[in-house]
C-alpha cells in the first residue's frame, strides 16, 4: 500500500497520457516473449529486462503446471471444515465485543451513560467513540480506573442508522450483546434525507453542515457558506485517471446523424460477505496481533500501526482464510480499531465480528446511480459525442462516480462528463467489484444496443464497428459462436413467456501493485515454501502461487507449501481491483528463480557442470548435455551446503513500462457476455436461462479457478440485475431488509447455465504475464440481461433491479 506519511506525495491532477519509456536497468538483457493470442495472432515481442529476470515462459501449451486445471491446494480444508477463518478464532481468555449503534438516521447525542454496562457482570471494557477516538487509552480491566467522562461536544453527530457510538467487551457474546443495550443514550433527533432525488433538492436536510474554514470568521458563516457547499451535492467530477473531457461535445452533437438520450437508474447493492467484517485483536506490550477478515493484511497492519503509533514491526495481521470481501474489506475498519482499543483496555484478546444486520448497514455498499447519458451517432455507426451526467449516493461517504466506461470503452472524439456525489443519511458506500463500471455499463451498453437497432445492425457486429479493442473482438466472435448467437428482432417470441437474447461488454483497467513481494524457501528435505502477506480471499491465490513455484522448479502444485495471509512475511498486494494475480505472481516466479539458481549452483558444483546446463523438470534435476547426470529434486536439495536456500523478490515494473492514459482501456481486461432470458409477460418475472461469458486475463494460470471466478461474477451480476436492493424505510431511516431473508440474492434455482470462453492472451508484461479476472467477470452481466429482456419483450428497462413490478410497468400492464 502506498504510505503517504513517508514523504510528500504529489498527485497528478490529470495523469500523463503518454506511454512511458521502459525502465532502465544497470544490467539488462533482451528476452523474447510470447505476444498475442495463440491460434490467432501469436508472435514474439522482444523486451529489454533486468538481468535478474527469469527466462521467458513459453505459452501455456508448453507448460506442465501453469495453465493446467489444478485443484485448489486448500480445498481439502474447506470441504472438511478444518479451515480456520477469523470468525473461528478463539484465543485463551478471549472476550467478545459488541457495538452500540445509532438507531436514528440523524441525531445528536444529548446524554450518554455507560455505567450500567460497565457494572454488568462479565463486562471487562467499555469504550465510547469520540469524534476523534484516542489511540492511547487507560487500562480498565477490573474497572479500577475512574469512568471516562464524555464531553457532549466531543461525541460525533450521528448521520446514519448503524453509526457506531460505543462498544463493550465481555466474557461471552450474549453478555456483550446485553451489556451494549445497557448503555443509555438520549438523542435529539433531526430531520434526515435518504433519497437521491430529494437530497439534491434545495431545502433538503443537510448531511454535512458548512465548514467553518476560518476560526476568526465563525460568526459570519451561514447562508453564504451553505450555498457554496451546494447542500448535499459534491462535484462534479469531470475526469478520471483516464483523462479529462476531450473534443467539443456540442459540435459533436451538431454533427450527429442521430442522438440517443436516455436516463438510467441503478440501486444500492450491499456486499453480503458470508463472513462478516471483523477481527480478533490481541494487544500485548511487545506485539499487537490481529486476526482479520480482510482483503489486505498489510493495509490493516499499516492502519493500526499509524493509529496506535506503533512501528509496523510491532503489529502482526493474520488472515489465513477469509469468507468474502468483494471490495469492502480494506483497512482496519472501525471494528478493528475498536477491538484493539478494547483489548488494550481489558488486557485480553477481543473478538469483534459484525452481525448480519450491521454488515448490511455499515460495512459498505455499491452506491446507486442516476445517469443521464446522451450519445450522438453517425449513420455509419461511429460515435461522435458522449455526454454523461450522473448522480449517485454513497450515503455519508463519497465515491459514486460511474463515468470511466463511457469515457473510454469506445472510440469517440468528443466526450464530457459531470458526475455528482450526493450525501444522504445512510451508511457509507465502499468499493464493490468493479466500482463505477458495473453501473456505467448498465447504461452505456443499453444505449449501444439501441443504436444498433436504430442502425438495423446486429449488436455484435455493430460493436465491431465502434470497438477498437482487438481482443474483445475475438471474444465477441468466440462468445457468439459458443452462444449460437443469431440476432432476432425484439419481441419475436409469440407466447406469453417470451425468450430473448442479448449481449453486452465491459472493461477493466489492468492494474498492478508493485509493492508485491514474496519469499521462496527450498529446504534440504526437498520441501518448498512460498511466503507473502498476500491473502487468498477465495479467488485461489494460494493455488496459483503454488503453480508458479512448481512450474519453475519442475514440481507439482501440491508439492509446494503456501504460507500467505500473514504480515510476518514480505508484503503482498491487497486483493482488490483484480490486481492480485498480475502483481504477486511475477514476484513469486522471480523469487523462485533466484532460489533455484542458488540450488542449481550447488548442484552444478557437485557435478562440475555449468548452471545453464541444468534443468528442473518432472521432479528431477538433470544435465541437458549429459543424460547420465540426473537426480530427483529431493536428492538435489540434499546436496545443499545449508539447510535451506531462500530468495525474496518484488514485482518489477512492467516489461516495457506501463501503459497509461487514454489507451489504457484498450488494455487487456475486456469482457463480453451473452445472455438468454425468459420473461413472463403475465407476471413480470425474468429468468436468466443461459450466459456465455468470454474473457481474457493475460496468461490464464488455472483455468478451473478462472471459470469459478467468472461464474461468480456472472451470478453476482444476475443478483444485481434482478433481485438485490437495499430498501430503506423513508420514515425511520432503517434498512428494512438488513438480513439474508428479505435482501434477495440468487440461490441455486436462479443460477443460469454458464459457459466460459477464455482467451489466452499474451502481452509480454512480466515474468508470468498474468492478470486478474474478478472485476471484468462482473461488469457486463446486468447490461447483457437488460438487453436480452428488451429483445424478449420489446420494452426496455432503464432501472435496476428488473423486478416483476418494473417489467409489468414497462409492458404497460400495471
Amino acid at each position, binding site marked *: 500500500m502506498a504510505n503517504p506519511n513517508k514523504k510528500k506525495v504529489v498527485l497528478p491532477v490529470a495523469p500523463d497520457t503518454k506511454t512511458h519509456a521502459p525502465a532502465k536497468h544497470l544490467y539488462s538483457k533482451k528476452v523474447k516473449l510470447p505476444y498475442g493470442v495463440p491460434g490467432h495472432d501469436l508472435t514474439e515481442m522482444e523486451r529489454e529486462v533486468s538481468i535478474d529476470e527469469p527466462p521467458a515462459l513459453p505459452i501455456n501449451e508448453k507448460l506442465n503446471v501453469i495453465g493446467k486445471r489444478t485443484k485448489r491446494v486448500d480445498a481439502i480444508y474447506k470441504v472438511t471444515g478444518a479451515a480456520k477463518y477469523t470468525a473461528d478464532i478463539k484465543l485463551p481468555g478471549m472476550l467478545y465485543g459488541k457495538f452500540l449503534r445509532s*438507531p436514528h438516521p440523524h441525531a445528536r447525542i444529548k446524554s450518554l451513560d455507560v455505567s450500567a454496562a460497565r457494572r454488568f457482570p462479565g463486562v471487562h471494557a467499555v469504550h465510547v467513540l469520540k469524534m476523534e477516538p484516542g489511540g492511547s487509552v487507560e487500562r480498565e480491566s477490573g474497572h479500577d480506573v475512574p469512568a471516562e467522562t464524555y464531553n457532549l461536544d466531543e461525541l460525533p453527530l450521528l448521520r446514519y442508522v448503524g453509526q457506531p457510538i460505543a462498544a463493550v467487551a465481555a466474557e461471552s457474546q*450474549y453478555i456483550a*450483546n446485553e451489556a451494549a443495550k445497557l448503555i443509555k443514550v438520549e438523542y435529539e433527533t433531526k430531520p434526515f434525507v435518504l433519497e437521491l432525488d430529494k437530497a439534491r433538492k434545495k431545502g433538503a436536510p443537510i448531511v454535512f453542515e458548512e465548514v467553518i474554514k476560518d476560526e476568526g470568521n465563525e460568526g459570519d458563516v451561514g447562508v453564504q457558506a451553505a450555498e457554496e457547499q451546494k447542500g448535499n451535492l459534491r462535484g462534479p467530477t469531470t475526469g478520471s485517471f483516464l483523462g479529462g473531457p476531450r473534443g467539443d461535445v456540442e459540435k459533436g452533437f451538431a454533427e450527429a446523424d442521430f442522438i440517443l438520450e436516455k436516463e438510467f437508474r441503478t440501486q444500492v447493492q450491499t456486499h453480503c460477505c458470508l463472513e462478516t467484517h471483523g477481527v480478533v485483536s490481541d494487544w500485548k506490550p511487545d506485539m499487537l496481533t490481529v486476526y482479520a477478515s480482510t482483503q489486505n493484511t498489510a493495509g490493516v497492519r499499516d492502519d493500526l500501526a499509524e493509529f496506535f503509533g506503533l512501528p509496523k514491526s510491532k503489529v502482526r495481521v493474520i488472515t489465513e482464510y477469509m469468507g468474502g470481501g468483494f471490495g469492502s474489506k480494506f483497512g482496519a475498519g472501525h471494528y478493528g480499531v475498536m477491538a484493539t482499543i478494547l483489548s488494550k483496555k481489558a488486557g485480553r484478546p477481543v473478538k469483534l465480528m459484525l452481525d448480519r444486520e450491521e454488515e448490511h448497514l455499515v460495512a459498505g455498499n455499491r452506491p446507486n446511480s442516476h445517469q443521464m447519458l446522451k450519445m450522438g451517432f453517425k449513420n455509419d455507426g461511429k460515435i461522435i459525442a458522449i455526454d454523461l451526467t450522473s448522480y449517485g449516493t454513497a450515503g455519508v461517504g463519497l465515491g459514486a462516480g460511474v463515468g470511466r466506461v463511457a469515457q473510454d470503452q469506445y472510440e469517440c472524439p468528443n466526450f464530457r462528463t459531470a458526475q455528482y456525489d450526493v450525501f444522504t443519511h445512510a451508511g457509507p458506500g465502499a468499493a464493490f467489484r468493479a466500482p463505477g463500471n458495473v453501473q456505467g455499463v448498465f447504461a452505456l451498453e443499453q444505449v449501444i444496443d439501441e443504436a444498433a437497432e436504430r442502425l438495423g445492425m446486429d449488436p455484435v457486429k455493430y460493436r465491431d464497428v465502434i470497438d477498437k479493442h482487438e481482443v474483445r473482438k475475438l471474444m465477441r466472435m468466440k462468445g457468439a459462436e459458443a452462444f449460437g448467437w443469431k440476432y432476432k428482432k425484439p419481441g419475436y417470441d409469440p407466447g406469453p413467456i417470451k425468450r430473448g437474447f442479448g449481449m453486452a461488454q465491459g472493461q477493466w483497467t489492468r492494474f498492478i501493485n508493485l509493492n508485491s513481494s514474496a519469499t521462496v524457501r527450498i529446504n534440504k528435505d526437498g520441501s518448498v515454501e512460498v511466503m507473502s502477506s498476500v491473502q487468498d480471499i477465495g479467488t485461489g491465490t494460494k493455488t496459483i502461487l503454488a503453480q508458479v513455484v512448481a512450474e519453475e522448479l519442475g514440481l507439482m502444485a501440491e508439492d509446494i507449501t503456501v504460507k500467505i495471509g500473514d504480515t510476518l512475511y514480505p508484503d503482498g498486494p491487497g486483493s482488490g481491483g483484480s490486481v492480485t494475480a498480475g502483481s504477486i505472481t511475477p514476484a513469486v516466479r522471480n523469487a523462485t528463480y533466484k532460489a533455484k539458481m542458488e540450488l542449481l549452483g550447488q548442484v552444478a558444483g557437485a557435478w562440475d557442470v555449468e548452471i545453464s546446463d541444468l534443468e528442473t523438470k518432472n521432479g528431477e534435476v538433470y544435465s541437458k548435455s549429459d543424460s547420465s547426470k540426473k537426480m530427483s529434486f529431493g536428492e538435489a536439495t540434499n546436496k545443499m551446503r545449508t539447510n535451506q536456500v531462500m530468495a525474496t523478490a518484488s514485482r518489477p515494473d512492467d516489461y516495457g513500462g506501463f501503459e497509461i492514459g487514454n489507451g489504457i482501456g484498450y488494455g487487456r481486461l475486456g469482457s463480453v457476455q451473452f445472455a438468454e432470458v425468459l420473461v413472463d409477460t*403475465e*407476471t*413480470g*418475472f425474468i*429468468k436468466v436461462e443461459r450466459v456465455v461469458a468470454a474473457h481474457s486475463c493475460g496468461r490464464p494460470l488455472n483455468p478451473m479457478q478462472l471459470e469459478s471466478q467468472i461464474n461468480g461474477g456472472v451470478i453476482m451480476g444476475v443478483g444485481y440485475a434482478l*433481485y438485490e436492493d437495499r*430498501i*430503506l*424505510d*423513508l*420514515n*425511520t431511516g*432503517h434498512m*428494512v*431488509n438488513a438480513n439474508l*431473508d*428479505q435482501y*434477495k440474492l*440468487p*440461490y*441455486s*434455482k*436462479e443460477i443460469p447455465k454458464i459457459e466460459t470462453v477464455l482467451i489466452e492472451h499474451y502481452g509480454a508484461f512480466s515474468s508470468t504475464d498474468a492478470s486478474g479476472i474478478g472485476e471484468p467477470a462482473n461488469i457486463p452481466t446486468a447490461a447483457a440481461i437488460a438487453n436480452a429482456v428488451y429483445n424478449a419483450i420489446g420494452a426496455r428497462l432503464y432501472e435496476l433491479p428488473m*423486478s*416483476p*413490478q418494473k417489467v*409489468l*410497468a414497462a409492458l404497460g*400492464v*400495471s
Partner: protein
Amino acid sequence: MNRFEYIKAPSIAEAIDMMDSTVPEAMVTKTGGSAKVVKAGGTDLLDLIKEGILEPGRLIDLKNIPGLDKLSYDKKNGLQFGPMVTIADLENSPEVKKHYRALYEAATHAATPQIRNMATMGGNLMQRPRCWYFRSSGHHCRKKGGTTCFAQIGQNQFHSIFLTNVCPCVHPSSLATALVAYDGKVELTGPEGKRVIALSEFFTPSEVNVTCENVATNQEIITNIMLPPVNEGTRAFYIKQGQRESYDWSMGDVAVVLQMDGKKCQDARIVFGAAAPIPLRREAAEEVLKGKAITEKVVVQAAKKALEGATPLAHNGYKVHLFQTLLKRTVMEAIG
C-alpha cells in the same frame, strides 16, 4: 436473545397446564421475560427471540410428547396429521402427493429443505407474519401493541392488497393457503377440552384482532389438523410465486380445489396467500366457476372477480395483475 428457562413437556395436558401465554400475547402484554410459551419446531420462535421482539421467560417444548407427529390417511376420513408433523413429512408422504396435490405443491415450495425438516405444521399455522416492520425491534407497530402501521406509510411492496385497513401484513403460511382450500380443520386442545374449527375460521383478520393472527387462546395447543377426503372428481393445484424460485417467501400464492363432474365444475374453493393478513377465500370467483364448464374465458372472468375489492398500497399494485395470472394458471393446471 434473552435468557429463558426450558422444560420438556411430557404430555399435552401438562403442557397446557404449564403455558400461560400465546406468542402474540407474550409480545404485547407479557413482556420482560415473564411469558411461558410452547415451542414446537422452534424455527419461527427462535427467529422472534433473536430479533429481540419476543422475550419469553420459559419455553415449553412439545417435542417429547408422543403421538403428535403422526400422519394418517384413509378414503373415508381423509388426511389427518398431528402438529409436530414437519413440512418435509408432508412433502414425503405418498398419500399427500397422490391425493392432495395442492398441499404437496405448497409443501415442496415452502422455505428451504433444512427448514422443512425442522418446521412443524402446528408451528407453521401459528407463525407470525414476516412484515419487516413487525420483525424489526426498532418499529413498535400495531401488531406489537403500538399505534402506528409503518407499512401503510412506508415500504409495502410485499404487503397485502386486501384487508389493508388496520395492518396490511400478509399471513406467512403458504401451506395454510392449500389447507384452507381443502376446507381443512384444526383441533385445539385447552384446559376445557378439545374444540374443532374450520381453518377458515381459525385465522383472524387484523380488523378483528391486530395483535394476533388466529383464535387460539393462551392455553390452547393445536393437536390435530384434518382435511376432508377427496374423490375422483377432485382437482386441485397450487402455485407460489416468490421473487426467487429458490428459497423465498411468497409474493402471491394461489390454491384451488375444484369438484368436477366431467367438464363441469360443481364446486370450487379458491384461496389466495400473501394477499391479505389471512389466507383469503375468493368466494365471488368461486361462484363464477360453479356450474360451468371451465374454459379459459370463464377462468379469466373468475380471475377478474377475484380481484374485485382489492385495495393495493403504494408499492404493491403489481400484485393485482399477478394474482389474476396466478389464479388463471392454477385453475388451468388443476383441470389439467
